[in-house]
């Protein structure tokens, strides 16, 4: 196999580049606005709604959807499911980019972004769950970076250091799973401090567990979803090894995701029963909750199960898309829609165009960097010098 080092898109002016370029330019303008005018003029945030879409989407969804990194590497290196090997690199790369962008996006939301290292280096508020999130995300970002470096070193041809890093794989993987467990669940735990603000159907002392379990489903679904996307767009970058295992990974994760979603549905139902919140189901919010639970948890769970049984790839891919949307829906519900449910409609939050613009900008940035890296470094293919050397 030849190293597809230079067969990127032929012309620089294809549709993708034009659209992405336009978004990036707009994003830069909004960035200037944000940092010269302050948060107030560019967002719909206010004293009642201090957290908007930059937290609800960029942070909560970003972190959940980047969970493919730890789920895949755990499946491969800890659970010893070797057929997941080909999926590890794309997943690690996505996770690394995901987290890097989460931190990047935070810069917009924080009042004094340059103080982001303060909680760790200046004044440690250890009673805060946000402290835990911050610490774990920082450490995990480092872990992901190290896990990603072998691909970079192969691209650069630095053999010795690559070998050292590859030796650390297991330790890094375990460390990554621990850190992910902690911060994925802490994101849910952030909201346990505000029982009076979050609707009872979503509020639960078990929120940390909910967030953790749903992140596993989200991570697996993202690997499937993204794998099939890349399959279409980046097929030329994939080697036989990757392609051979692709379907196996999809079926394996599809099966696991069905189980996880089933468990998630079960513990969520237990949560409602535990607090005896059944009566809320017959209300507007009840409808929202049922939509989430039936449409975005039970349905993909079922589709995954059937898809795996019938060896139906396209059904599994559909299920993965529904699950990904479901995670976004859930995080939106917790952080925005069912949050502050007690406020009168006039005081409720809806994101401004600028806020949405920045979020779109950041996602686009992620896709552009992902393309840049996958069209150059050995992500979907094994570097010829290191064949079978893992």
């Amino acid at each position, binding site marked *: 196999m030849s190293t597809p080092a230079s067969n990127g898109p032929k012309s620089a002016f294809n549709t993708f580049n034009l659209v992405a370029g336009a978004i990036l330019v707009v994003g830069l303008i909004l960035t200037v606005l944000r*940092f*010269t*005018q*302050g948060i*107030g*003029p560019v*967002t719909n945030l206010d*004293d*009642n709604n*201090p*957290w908007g879409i930059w937290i609800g989407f960029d942070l909560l969804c970003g972190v959940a959807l980047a969970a493919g990194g730890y789920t895949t590497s755990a499946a491969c*290196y*800890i*659970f*010893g499911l*070797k057929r997941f090997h080909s999926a590890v690199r794309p997943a690690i790369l996505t996770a690394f980019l995901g987290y890097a962008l989460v931190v990047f996006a935070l810069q917009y*939301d*924080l*009042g*004094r*972004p340059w*103080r*982001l290292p*303060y*909680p760790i280096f200046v*004044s*440690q*508020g250890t*009673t*805060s*769950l*946000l*402290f835990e999130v*911050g610490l774990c995300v920082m450490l995990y970002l480092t872990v992901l970076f190290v896990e990603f470096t072998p691909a970079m070193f192969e691209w650069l041809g630095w053999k010795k250091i690559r070998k050292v890093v590859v030796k650390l794989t*297991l330790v890094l993987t*375990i460390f990554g*799973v*621990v850190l992910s*467990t*902690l911060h994925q*669940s*802490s994101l849910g*735990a*952030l909201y*346990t*401090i*505000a*029982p*009076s*603000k979050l609707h009872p159907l979503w509020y639960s*002392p*078990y929120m*940390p*567990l909910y967030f*953790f*379990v749903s992140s596993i489903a989200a991570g697996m679904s993202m690997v499937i979803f993204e794998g099939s996307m890349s399959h279409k767009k980046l097929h030329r970058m994939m080697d036989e090894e990757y392609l051979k295992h692709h379907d196996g990974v999809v079926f394996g994760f599809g099966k696991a995701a069905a*189980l996880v979603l089933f*468990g998630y549905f079960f*513990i969520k139902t237990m949560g409602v029963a535990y607090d005896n919140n059944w009566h809320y189901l017959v209300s507007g919010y009840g409808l929202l909750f049922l939509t989430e639970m039936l449409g975005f948890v039970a349905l993909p769970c079922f589709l995954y199960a059937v898809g795996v049984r019938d060896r139906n790839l396209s059904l599994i891919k559909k299920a993965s898309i529904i699950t990904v949307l479901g995670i976004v829906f859930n995080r939106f519900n917790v952080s925005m829609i069912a949050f502050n449910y*007690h406020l009168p409609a006039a005081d409720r939050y809806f994101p401004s165009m600028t806020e949405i613009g920045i979020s779109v900008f950041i996602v686009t940035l992620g896709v552009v960097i992902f393309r840049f890296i996958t069209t150059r470094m050995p992500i979907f293919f094994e570097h010829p010098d290191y064949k079978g050397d893992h």
Partner: protein
Amino acid sequence: MLRRTFLGMLGAACVGASLPAGAEAAGKEFKGYPGSKGVLFDATRCIGCRKCEAACNKVNKLPKPEKSFDDLAVLDERRRTDAKTHTVVNKYGTPEHPVFRKSQCNHCLEPACASACFVKAFKKLPNGAVVYDESVCVGCRYCMVACPFEIPTYEYDEPLTPRVMKCDMCAARQDKGQLPGCVAECPKEALVFGEREELILIARERIRRNPDRYVRHIYGEDEMGGTSWMYLSGVPFKEIGMREDLGTKSAPELTAGALAAVPMVAGLWPVLLGGIYAVSKRNAKVADEERKEAVENAIAKASAEAEKTLSDALEKADVANKRQIEVEVKKAVEEALKPVEEEPEGSDEAGNSEKEES
């Protein structure tokens, strides 16, 4: 098997997340610093004159509002505190029987804002005040998410140095032995400053003396684990915009379970994962060895078989050869003898040669 282990672990995580909450709540109850100060607000005495608002604005050197504090028309709107206003008075009830309620930071005994802040920018002082230190604040606004009373506000228009703004119970004035600005200015003694313990006694006494005038509840005595500001009212607190569903758990109690799970996850997870790794590696090794053995056996068996077949074949070939030679010899002898007897028949010869070929 792996899947089952995994689900079992999830179960363990579930137990881990739920148990410490109970264990922790029992031993850790903070009822405030002894002798700490507070304020008692009596809604039955408040006349909505906004003198406290004006005083707060003055002592905290906040920007002048658009409409003056004498303008009582603003009482018809529902207002909340903001970055330029640390306290507001709102009007509730009916036009004939208006009830006024002042709101500001309640200075919780165990403040949600302080426990939420990841740089410890908020601190509960022994005198009761909850104060903010802008020199470390990152501006994440989690404190605002956390406060159940919706008190901390933010300087959203400040691009570089936004601060979280709220009442600090005039901590600096207290240090100088002065009353908080609002308390000092209240013409109706709707506000009473004093030791929290004392205030509770005063409040109980008022309720006892005028049971018809008051709702039998001191708001803030237990809400969210107790607050340094407390309230008396003649109408249900819900009707003057105060939530009655906050419960008596303090913010740290609410998050204790999640925090307590951290060391457990950090301690247990690597061990469990390491175990799973060991098992899966051992499985892989066993499977590997078995596979190798099977392959070796197969090869051994195959080669043995091959050998046997070969030698059989050779043997057979040998026998066949011998027999053929014998046959040939016999034939040759027979043929050598034959022509003498049956020379004239040519067809026989053809038949013979055919036999030879086969």
